């Protein structure tokens, strides 16, 4: 656990986030400080301690598998930045053969 070798542009690519040069160097310094602060967690022995995922104990919530009225498609598509009929429109994904 160390903040050394923290490559902000690599992480930004994983996060699908384009960063400018200034932004990248600013974040690199700030996040380095924050990660350094996190290192205090290394002081603790957590062997055999169960992780906590949530604030209370409920695990799976099941319901009967019965079809119900869903949302209105046209209403949801009305927020689309670009659409063609009942579909979202995007730049081409598949290369020409």
């Amino acid at each position, binding site marked *: 656990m160390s903040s050394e070798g923290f490559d902000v542009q690599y992480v930004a690519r994983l996060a*699908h986030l384009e960063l400018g040069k200034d932004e990248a160097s600013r974040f690199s310094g700030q996040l380095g400080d924050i990660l350094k602060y996190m290192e205090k*967690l290394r002081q*603790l022995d957590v062997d055999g301690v169960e992780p*906590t995922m949530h604030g*209370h104990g409920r695990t799976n919530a099941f319901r009967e598998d019965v079809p119900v009225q869903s949302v209105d498609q046209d209403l*949801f598509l009305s927020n689309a930045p670009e659409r063609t009929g009942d579909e979202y429109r995007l730049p081409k994904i598949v290369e020409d053969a």
Partner: protein
Amino acid sequence: MEFKDWTVASAAEAMRKGEISSVELVRALVAEKNARDGDIQAYLTFDEDGAIAAASEADSRRAAGDTSPLLGIPVAVKDLINVRGQPCTCASKILEGYVSPYDATVIARLKAAGAVCAGRVNMDEFAMGSSTENSAFKTTRNPHDLSRVPGGSSGGSAAAVAGGEAVCALGTDTGGSIRQPASFCGIVGFKPTYGRVSRYGVTAFASSLDQVGPMTKTVEDSALLAQALFGADPHDGTTALNPVPDFASALRGASLKGLRIGLPREYFVPGTAPEVTEIVKAAIGKCADAGAEIVDVSLPHTEYAMAVYYIVAPAEASANLARFDGVRYGHRSAKSDDVMSLYCRSRAEGFGQEVKRRIILGTYVLSSGYYDAYYGRAQRVRTLIRRDFDSAFGKVDFLLTPVAPTPAFKVGELQDPLSMYLNDLFTIPASLAGLPAISVPAGATAAGLPVGVQFIAPSFADAPLLACARAFEDTLA
């Protein structure tokens, strides 16, 4: 009565007696908002026609014999909660122009109870911040001193209520976002037990921590709202199945006599502003005078809570915010010719600095090779923090602590992210443990800045917590 003096309870009573109608109440709100919000800047939008229509329907329901306690009460809504037909920007440019196609469960419940949900209030972008300065649209001011922040992230909610331009509001709390602004603005802010209130339709920040709660002028008002908000929801599998308490009967005859109130020694350390310490100590004295037994306790893992929180919350946020990619709704970059650049540029143009910082931090701590060292370890330390509370609650009924180390700070005063994060020191541990906690006004500094105290209760002791807070409120009267 002046608009600023209406509480949920007093307005409901006046409407029951026919002294005022909901339409009149909403008109008065709009007049106050127009007069005050130029200075305070709490509201992002207000649907005036929708408000009058809903108020007039509430008046008709009342005429037909409906006696719901929230009937006709206007509720200001934090701008990350979906209300059908209204914007829901989360104070982010990435959601500019978005119109909610559905009601969040909390809104459906409030509407069913007859409340009027028309005003949308400012916040830190995607609830990431402690000052509301991270809004992409405006800087909300503290009504007690316009040069200072209202706190955050539910700063618009707190400022609207404290500034006399809302009767009550909804906020959300992930690491203190209801309690800290309530303390800064001198109002009551209640974060329920995790799972008490549905998160369906509430834009997710950190799913294992987020909880909606009331921000009000009195504890009684928080109880009235909680009564409507609480309950299991088939749309949210993390809602608890526990029965909803009857708050009115819990609050009746509330008293501090015989209650064991714990003071966790880790919360009374140097670094807290002397005036805050003084006010909290006076509050402890009042509890003792009212018959509470004051007990020293220890929560030994408190010092690790902030590190845990700033791993867990950004990790969950980085996953939750992956949905904002310019495809189905929200901002889409005009400068992209393939799908990958569309994602990356839309997000770069749409998100603000703090949101980007947390996405990167969260992505990093979840990334291959670092997951166990950061996220896995943080979740285990989270268990140790929960155990601290379990053991403290074996000895006491409630904990009393400061809410924040300082009163409201100046706009622009905290520039470094880490020092801003330290503001949440006293509110984060209860969030990590999923516990109910409330900030109640306790006094003010010499300069007139409000300071609250925090009461924390065991899981699902929401009603006893409000009763305790109500009894504390009585000691100040």
